[in-house]
């Protein structure tokens, strides 16, 4: 059995590690400090934590100012608010000026569960990757979220890291490489490629294992950095396999699948299928129940693979 751990824990641990490495790293709280795990940083470095209250726009502005004053500020709240409530501050103040501000987008995806649509961030990959100068990372599990958070803090410029609330399979290894912009090939195969981010990478691996029994060889790529996108990794999927499934726990329009498709159509057109939320708001429910209700499980990936194989005459 694979270990289960929420990706938000990886964010909190990464932030503490960064705090140790760099005394200029500071963190802002938006009244959900514990539930986004900034509390770990607050406990370790009480003098470098600042409570801003329920004021996301101001948190983005204060972070912008702190970066101008030479600090490396992180602010974190639920992704709906972190990316949405202060979108204009992020766009015009942080990204246009290219400020060194880091954003932790918690509660990413439908798996947030019973809180329902208002708290399930399903548009942030799209609304963040649309902004020039922004780096967008969607790590696959808690270990990778820790590495991504550290990498975000050590790069220069605006960066958004998306993570989730529920415990999810923790399957990447401590010594797996993590570099912003470099996708990880996590399973080789040549009939079809699944390119995924976040928790969908694990679902893709499960789908690949199942199809192996039928002799279908599935390549799986963990495209943790949505922007800047690893065009080379996408092109080699198209060249090796001739068809691609993209999978994300996010709205189908404008997000990760679209980002992959943009590269595919420009550089190496091959048939593609998308596994994503089909242009609807979320709902209350158990996380697991919602993942299947919204078509985000390994069996949905299996169906998408069958469709794309059929379409490419395989």
């Amino acid at each position, binding site marked *: 059995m694979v270990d289960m751990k929420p990706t938000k824990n990886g964010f909190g641990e990464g932030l503490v590690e960064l705090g140790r490495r760099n005394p200029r790293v500071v963190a802002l709280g938006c*009244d959900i400090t514990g539930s986004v795990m900034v509390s770990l940083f607050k406990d370790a470095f009480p003098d470098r934590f600042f409570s801003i*209250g329920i*004021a996301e726009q101001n948190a983005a502005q204060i972070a912008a100012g702190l970066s101008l004053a030479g600090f490396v500020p992180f602010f974190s709240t639920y992704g709906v608010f972190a990316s949405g409530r202060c979108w204009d501050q992020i766009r015009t103040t942080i990204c246009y000026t290219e400020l060194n501000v880091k954003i932790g987008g918690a509660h990413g995806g439908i798996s947030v569960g019973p809180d329902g649509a208002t708290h399930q961030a399903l548009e942030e990959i799209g609304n963040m990757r649309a902004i020039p100068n922004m780096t967008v990372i969607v790590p696959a599990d808690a270990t990778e979220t820790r590495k991504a958070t550290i990498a975000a803090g050590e790069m220069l410029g605006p960066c958004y890291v998306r993570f989730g609330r529920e415990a999810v399979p923790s399957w990447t290894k401590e010594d797996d490489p993590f570099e912003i912009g470099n996708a990880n090939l996590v399973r080789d195969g040549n009939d079809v490629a699944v390119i995924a981010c976040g928790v969908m990478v694990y679902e893709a691996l499960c789908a690949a294992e199942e199809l192996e029994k039928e002799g279908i060889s599935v390549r799986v790529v963990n495209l943790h950095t949505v922007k800047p996108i690893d065009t080379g990794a996408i092109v080699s999927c198209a060249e090796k396999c001739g068809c691609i499934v993209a999978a994300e726990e996010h709205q189908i329009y404008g997000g990760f699948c679209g980002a992959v498709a943009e590269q595919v159509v420009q550089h190496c057109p091959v048939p593609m299928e998308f596994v994503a939320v089909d242009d609807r708001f979320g709902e209350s429910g158990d996380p697991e129940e919602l993942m299947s209700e919204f078509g985000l499980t390994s069996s949905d990936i299996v169906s998408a693979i069958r469709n794309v194989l059929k379409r490419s005459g395989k």
Partner: protein
Amino acid sequence: MVNLNMSVSELEEQARQCRIDIIRMLAEAGSGHSGGSLSSVDILVALYFNFMKHDPESPTWEERDFFILSKGHVCPALYTALARAGYFPVEELMTLRKLDSRLQGHPAKNKGLPGIEVSSGSLGQGLGIGAGVALGLKIDGRPNRVWCLNGDGEMQEGSIWESAMAAGHYRLDNLATIVDMNGLQIDGEVCKVMNIEPLDEKFRAFNWNVVKCGGHDMADLLRAYEEASGCKDKPTAILAKTVKGKGVSFMENVAGWHGKAPNADEAEIALKELGAL
């Protein structure tokens, strides 16, 4: 027909019933916001069972007062008030937060639950929505009033003050907001997380009328609603002093109960305290 013109003692009994519902709903759902639901339930009961003009048989009645739940996370308190007032079957309360339920974790207009005017759950938006409805009613010369419920932590959102400025500017005396002053938010005490005081002076400076009252004292709440309704040329902020988790001893004044539901054992103790068992 449910009595919507209750006396103070009837309101108190109704609020006790609603608290019992809240505990049962949250325990059944296994998640949700206990503290703020219990601190605001008397405010809602006084509105729905005495003061507000509304018709559960006809939720979109032209002459109704509008109620906007700005702090959407305390919807269990609103759901029980609506169900007990007759908007939908009381049994439906137990579907809270379940897949396909009309009782979403935060109020969802698209689910069609009678009595929900607008989806909410992203803090800081309800006061502006209320101001917009109030402005629209004034344009049309309609006598309906608008009632809004905010949290004290929610006062930290900048949009609240943009809305307050507009409501003062347009002299929206048909608008009142009740601020549930329970003194706590998720990270702890409001005054420590980000101080909002002096709140009364802030509202007055934005050209509002301010009324203070006890948020668990039915007679005092009714007095405050009366004063708000009588005020001319200014919107009214009712600052209602409350206790977060009110009515359940181990939840009272404990920030940790903000977004937590009681387990079966805790629910049993709570229900005993509320006289349900």
